[in-house]
């Protein structure tokens, strides 16, 4: 089933739900100067790059929203302390903001204010035979500890690359949130690694999945070559920049983030196999 996600509901009357949504998606810090943006000041080619990037972000942020919303319920079923639910409430609010900001960026650049979604691509069902706790742990490690950490790094680089004031506003708003998400992920990931009956079996299964997880994130980060080759490529395309990196720029952030943050922190929370998994991927990439 596919559907087209719109920012707001289509109704003749002003809806309270829309009013509340607009209030919620305002940046936590600073503002986004939508009104002062003049699209005619930029080339069609530069805007096309921006539209493609922000459409892609709208898609991935919507996937994150769906996954994190489900996780918020699952941690409640595990008996997590209430502060987990509180933090997840913020995270889901943030993801709504990111989808909204991405769609608006696409729109002001002349692209669609909607994004096409495929229900099958949400991947919300736990692996068959896996306990809920193991599923939550694996998802936290994958989507937060790795995914949000890398994402934060990419947005940090994108902020440095952005030359268009509006894009800087939007990337800044996202980056504020992503920084918290990464931090949250490591805290919760560490807490989920406290031993319990049957833990070692679950831990070992997760560790065995790390090579696959790392390879997945390499693909998702546009990694097509080894570290040296990647770092020799331009990180940013010439021209006005709407908060985007080249493919190699995203790949570079992947290498940097894995080296500096992900692998050491996975080791710290009790997954020492992360080092060998990372070395193995580096050897394959050359």
């Amino acid at each position, binding site marked *: *089933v*596919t*559907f087209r996600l719109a920012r707001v*509901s*289509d109704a003749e009357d002003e809806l309270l739900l829309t009013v509340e949504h607009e209030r919620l998606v305002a940046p936590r*810090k600073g503002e986004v100067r939508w009104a002062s943006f003049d699209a005619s000041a930029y080339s069609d080619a530069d805007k096309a790059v921006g539209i493609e*990037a922000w459409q*892609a*972000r709208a898609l*991935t942020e919507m996937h*994150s929203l769906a996954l994190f919303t489900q996780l918020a*319920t*699952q941690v*409640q079923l*595990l*008996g997590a*302390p209430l*502060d987990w639910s509180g933090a997840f409430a913020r995270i889901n609010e943030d993801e709504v903001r990111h989808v909204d900001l991405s769609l608006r960026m696409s729109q002001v650049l002349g692209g669609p204010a*909607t994004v096409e979604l495929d229900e099958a691509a949400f*991947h*919300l*069902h*736990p*692996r068959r*035979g*896996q*306990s809920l*706790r*193991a599923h939550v742990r*694996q*998802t936290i490690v*994958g*989507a937060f500890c*790795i*995914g949000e950490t890398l*994402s934060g790094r*990419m947005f*940090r680089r994108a902020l440095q690359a952005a030359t268009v004031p509006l894009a800087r506003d939007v990337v800044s708003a996202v*980056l*504020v949130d992503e*920084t918290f998400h990464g931090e949250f992920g*490591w*805290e919760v990931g560490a*807490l989920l*690694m*406290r*031993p*319990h*009956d049957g833990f070692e079996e679950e831990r070992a299964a997760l560790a065995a999945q790390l090579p696959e997880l790392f*390879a*997945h*994130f390499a693909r*998702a980060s*546009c990694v097509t070559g080894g570290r040296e080759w990647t770092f020799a490529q331009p990180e940013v395309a010439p021209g006005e920049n709407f908060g*985007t990196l080249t493919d190699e720029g*995203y790949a570079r952030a992947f290498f940097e983030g894995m080296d500096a943050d992900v692998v050491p*922190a996975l080791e*710290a*929370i*009790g997954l020492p196999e992360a080092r060998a998994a990372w070395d193995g991927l580096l050897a394959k990439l050359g």
Partner: protein
Amino acid sequence: MNPRRLDRLKRLATGVALAGATTAGLSCEEPKLINGPSISSLAAPDVETANGAPADDAGTTQPRPNHPLINAPRRPADAGTDAPAADADTPAAGQAEDTAPNPGPPIRLNAPPRRAPTADAGTPPAPAPRPQAPLINAPNPKLKQP
């Protein structure tokens, strides 16, 4: 990630009390269902296919009680504070699935008409081999799928 943050993660993971930490962590004991099995023993819930039909072996999962959970995680003793250390490059800016019957596809106000059924629409597709795909804000959606 600086050594202080890594050390903090190690302590979190090993259950050493963090003074003042609000997230003392999950109990080492799973919450139990009233008159029911532990959550983890429920294994994975039924996997549904994209068209809402149950997968072939969905009936192999254990029946689930409809009782509420006892929300009684036990917290280890904790006290004190260890403020998280910020990385130098960190900006200052700062369901086991539900036990209720499946209500069917979600309501989508902006949903286009569903696809016309294909010739083999009566055969539910197999569950995806990797139900959980980590997500990342990478630039090319074509690269999202593992």
